């Protein structure tokens, strides 16, 4: 009997053997390279840096985590979390009508058009998208041109004069950072919402109307609760991706840091790898809290 046939017989008699053979390579890869790396990160965050020599002290300590609570570092964490929450809310507001239309009204060609229309921006190059907004938000760019053309220059100036969120031009303000975050991560919200809406039976909406509900009431009490799992699923992406981004605020935004930039700066120029690691643990913890909260709200029950 050939080797292939012998092996086949053994696979047939012992399905566990085949299963083990299938699982070993991916588990080794993910276990060693990925989980190993995460553990290395966790370990690094319990080291500290010697203030005089600047070298890493390989002794377990909580000192580095303590540094996160210094006002300047704490501000970074709050700023990033607030931004992630705002970006998520704006993404829901923009994504919902697209998903609702695609799920309820689009048919045939229109449906394909919507799908491809969401897929292309979702998958097209991240940096190109950021770059496009650099062109748009620049002082000499299309927004200034349009505002001048419409004689609304005063409005743009008034917005830029706002404290905290304003700035010299849109491309160096929080408003700019916010717009680009929404633009880049919002497509991740559309497909999960659309998927949850597709599962809502049309009869349910008709029944709600027959029982005397206004369209607004039907939306609030029937459609929205059923779409919630999709919204939560999408918000996990927008929230997590905003928390961990360091390129968008670096290219478009003020000089005040976000968590991702802090991680990048600490491990690079500052050479403080333990603090960078501790900073990187923060978004992981926030995401765990977020998922736990979503679960308590019952958002996963309907899935």
């Amino acid at each position, binding site marked *: 009997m050939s080797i292939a046939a012998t092996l086949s017989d053994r696979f047939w008699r012992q399905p566990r053997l085949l299963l083990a053979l299938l699982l070993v390579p991916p588990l080794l890869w993910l276990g060693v390279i990925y989980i190993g790396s995460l553990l290395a990160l966790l370990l*690094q965050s319990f080291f500290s840096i010697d203030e005089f020599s600047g070298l890493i002290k390989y002794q377990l300590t909580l000192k580095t985590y303590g540094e996160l609570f210094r006002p300047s570092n704490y501000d970074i964490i709050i700023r990033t979390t607030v931004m992630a929450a705002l970006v998520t809310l704006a993404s829901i507001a923009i994504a919902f009508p697209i998903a609702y239309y695609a799920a309820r009204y689009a048919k045939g060609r229109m449906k394909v058009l919507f799908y491809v229309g969401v897929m292309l921006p979702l998958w097209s190059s991240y*940096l190109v998208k950021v770059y496009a907004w650099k062109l748009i938000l620049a002082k000499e760019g299309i927004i200034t041109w349009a505002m001048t053309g419409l004689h609304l220059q005063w409005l743009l100036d008034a917005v830029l004069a706002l404290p905290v969120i304003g700035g010299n031009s849109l491309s160096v303000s929080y408003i700019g950072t916010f717009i680009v975050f929404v633009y880049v991560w919002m497509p991740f919200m559309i497909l999960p919402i659309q998927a949850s809406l597709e599962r809502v039976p049309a009869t349910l909406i008709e029944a709600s109307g027959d029982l005397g509900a206004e369209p607004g009431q039907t939306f609030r009490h029937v459609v929205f609760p059923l779409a919630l799992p999709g919204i939560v699923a999408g918000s996990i992406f927008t929230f997590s991706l905003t928390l961990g981004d360091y390129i968008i605020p670096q290219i478009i935004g003020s000089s005040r840091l976000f968590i991702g930039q802090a991680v990048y700066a600490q491990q690079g120029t500052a050479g403080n790898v333990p603090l960078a690691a501790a900073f990187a643990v923060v978004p992981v913890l926030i995401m765990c809290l977020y998922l736990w909260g979503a679960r308590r709200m019952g958002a996963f029950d309907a899935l």
Partner: protein
Amino acid sequence: MRSDAPAPLSLRLAATGGLLFLHLPILLIFLYAFTTEERSYQFPPPGLTLQWFAVTWNRPDVWQALGLSVKVATVSTVLALILGTLTAAAVSRARFFGRETVSLLVILPIALPGIVTGIALRSAFNLADIPYSTLTIILGHATFCIVVVYNNAVARFRRLSGGMIEASYDLGANAFQTFRHVILPNIGTALMAGGMLAFALSFDEVIVTTFTAGQQQTLPIWMLEELVRPRQRPVTNVVAMVVVLATFLPILGAYYLTRDGAETAGGGK
């Protein structure tokens, strides 16, 4: 929740507006690739020219970055295809202890923020004294590409009926013949779609790459460098346009390959 009634006007406006918001900025990239303005992002462009395409064509650094990106994406895609298909086969064929953990493990590299994956890999390479090279970039890319192949393959495996595999055995085929003549033709398009998406994902990745690359520049790293410290803006404009066109092809290809299935490729990035 299909409805045959026409959509309310406000909903139509909001949906159209949302889609325009997604597409107009990308279209603007195409216009800027032809501008004659060199120093600023002036709109409207003072004039249009084709000269920057020639300039970009003759830039060795662009070609080098493109070459490295293609190499990294190709190797990562091949690795992800193997590992993703193996995981999908195991998870969809059998119920075993820790099955949920395995699927979670596959998804984790893209569920966690990119910066976490990036710094985690970097600290591991540091602790293990592995020098940064093309290899370290590939290690990172293959890790987060697995999930794309996995998602496509697992959906297809679920549709593949177990009876067909048993019939193949009954007719005397061994496990390898069954794989070659029954399973592979059935999952082929799903794998191809997954591979295209994995390639696109790797080709475009920048956040993890900045942590795992040494001195080498992939195309996204080259672009990032130009964004932070612009040297020749028109060249960046041209590269940006080419990148947009180049990523559209695999995405449309993946969509075309899986459009008849219940699970269309690319739904879960």
